């Protein structure tokens, strides 16, 4: 008999709030979490805005759990989101068999400890104008003095999972994937497959990331991927609108507890929804551009539908990848038309990146949570900043205000740099 997989806990830390309820409240009110960057002096960068997490109590977490002292910013977000998901799941840590409890996360790396790194580089610059800009021997000596070993360790993309496993007594299967913007959707999809196969009864999944640091902002800026609507930060992220000019960086974490249905029923858990299909494909096209034919992305959606035993007419809502780059939104629109056929213009589609910015590795998990909340409350979050239609994006993007609607089946799309396409099919749980 096939094991069914349900979601029994959710948690979020986003630019709109420090919990699912705060985030959801902002989303359905159509609020933007974007503002001027405060984490470092970005005043001379071409993009000066981002969706930062506000009011997070880092010290409070260190007081409670000293092992987090040097942890990366995004690890803190992950720990708090996971903590919320746990509280909502009503799981008791010692009542679970730790070896039947897995963790598959899509946690990002956290960049360098920029200050000490830059100091180390500056003090080892070659002045003789030779071919080497930096004297490596001097860099090694300087970095050994200036950089903190634990900060360096904590910046690695496996440390978030390390802390989560330690903190929540998870001994079972473990993994962390970092497939760019698709990472946390992929993590949820893969964790779902684990439970379906029987490798675990429970899994903590989701993702966390912050790329709002000088090299992250510089790197995406150089790729011309970021919006430069600096004057009106809250209007900068404009998925599907004709004036869109790139994405806005966001940061945060989304965590979900996946559980074997019979395990959840036995302990009378509250069920937020069911994962019924997972599609994963590759474009094999270019490093950053989506395949203009959208074949791979369409196939990911079709696989998710087919695995869930669903037809296009069953879909009540599509949570779009919708990054607000000129090309991606047009291709995603075309892909949805391909998959949904004549129903494409009838299904509500929205991009919550219009409000949260692009949380990169964490984006997909928070979008899954938005789908579950839409099912629970019967309301679809809007795509804000949708003012002027683009002829290439001519579907129903739930413009600007949330819409009441019964959502039984939702699809969540995540298409990452590098050509990774992920689609998850989610279903409301009925007894």
């Amino acid at each position: 008999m096939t094991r069914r997989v349900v979601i029994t806990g959710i948690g979020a830390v986003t630019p709109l709030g420090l919990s699912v309820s705060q985030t959801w409240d902002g989303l359905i009110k159509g609020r933007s979490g974007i503002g001027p960057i405060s984490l470092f002096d970005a005043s001379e960068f071409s993009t000066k805005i981002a969706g930062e997490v506000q009011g997070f109590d880092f010290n409070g977490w260190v007081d409670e759990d000293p092992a987090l002292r040097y942890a990366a910013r995004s690890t803190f977000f992950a720990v708090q989101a996971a903590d919320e998901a746990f509280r909502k799941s009503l799981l008791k840590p010692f009542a679970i068999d730790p070896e039947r409890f897995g963790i598959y996360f899509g946690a990002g790396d956290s960049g360098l400890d920029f200050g000490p790194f830059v100091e180390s580089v500056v003090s080892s610059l070659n002045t003789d104008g030779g071919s080497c800009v930096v004297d490596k021997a001097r860099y090694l000596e300087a970095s050994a003095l200036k950089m903190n070993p634990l900060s360096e360790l904590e910046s690695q993309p496996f440390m978030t999972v390390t802390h989560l496993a330690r903190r929540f007594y998870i001994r079972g299967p473990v993994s962390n994937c970092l497939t760019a913007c698709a990472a946390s959707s992929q993590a949820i999809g893969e964790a779902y497959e684990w439970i379906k196969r029987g490798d675990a009864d429970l899994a903590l999944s989701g993702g966390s990331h912050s790329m709002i640091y000088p090299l992250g902002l510089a790197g995406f800026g150089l790729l011309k991927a970021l919006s430069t609507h600096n004057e009106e930060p809250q209007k900068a992220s404009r998925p599907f609108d004709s004036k869109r000019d790139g994405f806005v960086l966001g940061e945060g974490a989304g965590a979900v507890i996946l559980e074997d249905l019979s395990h959840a029923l036995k302990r009378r858990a509250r069920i937020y929804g069911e994962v019924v299909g997972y599609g994963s494909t590759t474009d094999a096209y270019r490093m950053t551009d989506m395949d203009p034919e959208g074949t791979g992305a369409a196939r990911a959606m079709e696989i998710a539908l087919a695995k869930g035993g669903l037809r296009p007419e069953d879909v009540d809502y599509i949570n779009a990848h919708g990054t607000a780059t000129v090309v991606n939104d047009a291709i995603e629109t075309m892909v949805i038309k391909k998959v949904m056929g004549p129903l494409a213009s009838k299904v509500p589609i929205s991009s919550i990146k219009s409000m949260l910015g692009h949380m990169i590795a964490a984006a997909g998990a928070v979008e899954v949570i938005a789908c579950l909340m839409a099912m629970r409350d019967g309301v679809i979050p809007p795509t804000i900043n949708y003012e002027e239609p683009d002829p290439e994006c001519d579907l129903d993007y739930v413009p600007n205000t949330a819409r009441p609607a019964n959502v039984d089946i939702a699809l969540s799309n995540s298409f990452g740099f590098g050509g990774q396409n992920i689609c998850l099919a989610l279903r409301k749980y009925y007894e």
Partner: protein
Amino acid sequence: MTKRRVVVTGMGLVTPCGQGWQPYWEAVLQAQSSIRYFSNLHLNGFSAKIAGEIPDFNPEKFVKIRKTLKVMSREIQLAIAASQLAVQDAGIALESEDLQRFGLSLGTGIINNDLDEMGIGIRTAVGEAGTFEMSKFGQEGIRSLFPLWLLKYLPNMPACHISILHGLRGPSNTITTSASAGTQAVGEAARVIERGDADVMLAGGTDSKLNAMGISRFHLLNLLSHQNHVPESAYCPFDIRHDGIVLGEGAGLLVIEELEHARARHANIYAEISGYGSSSDFNHDPRCGEDSHGKSAAMQAALSDAGTGPDAVGLIVANGSGIPQEDIQEACAIRGIFEKVLDSVKVTGVKPITGHLVYGSGGVELAAAVLAVHKKVVPPLANLEVPDPECELPFAVGKAQPRELKNVLFNSFGFGGQNACLVVSSL
């Protein structure tokens, strides 16, 4: 429905021993380490001076479009080469495969910045006071960087380039659990095939920490061996002298495929991937791990996934990182599980041959486990002279010994406490 079985049909290795699996396997059989004094960086008074370096790697042999080399870090180039060697070794004709059913799964982590490349941006941002100024970096520093700079360093770019090169359009994954990542990538790829989402996968890992930032990180964590005076025998897991790792560089990718698919194309089958298990420790710092239960859990999970017990395992290819605490934990975990059969099992390890390849280690070392099964031979553990009394195990020493091997257990443990084990079996 019968379970879909997964077999290894091709192996592509680029290691300090040379290109292809053959020179690597030869070195493994001879217990011959490729660790040498490190020529690439001038390390002055720096404590680590030895490494497993690939001295003569020519990326142009593998990357036909020269200008794309500019966007490929060394990790990407090594992975591209390994992928081509693996596809060749598998004798698989890509033009007659359904490439939507051909995916890839890689272990790769943070790719370190080239300091000279980054240094240009930082140098430009140094103000009159001689210090870095963020505003100057924003104005001029960024503009002096290579526009596609970020793309050289994203962890999923090795997978991206490989998918483009071979046209692979099945599922793709990039796993970042440090030293266990490559092994996990293969284990997870095997699951993708088993559940029917693909018929063939390229899986393994790639890494090169032999750059200033990579060495700096390991040095900061005090994880590097100090035995610079004896490069070839410095890296000695489980030996009384073990005092940390010696870094290496390399990539190992395997072609794994569904058994009937392999048979239908009359492929050479090396061995079966029959079991996979992973687990977490509760440690949070690789230097002070107290917990060996996680390591036992992963081994147990892999064995039970393979439907086999310790008595049917002839050889363990240990993680053997050479970090004393980790070696002791692994020995303890192995003794716990293999307690009753310690006289029938042998334990070996292959990290001394190439140095620790970190994200590249899983794919490369798995090739040794696969070849042990395929060639029916137990390779010795290099550089073991006097075992650490806390690591007492039935080690394979001396010459390589011929032996029928039904099952080999392969361990990979990451620095963050992520453990992955595979069982490799003869068909």
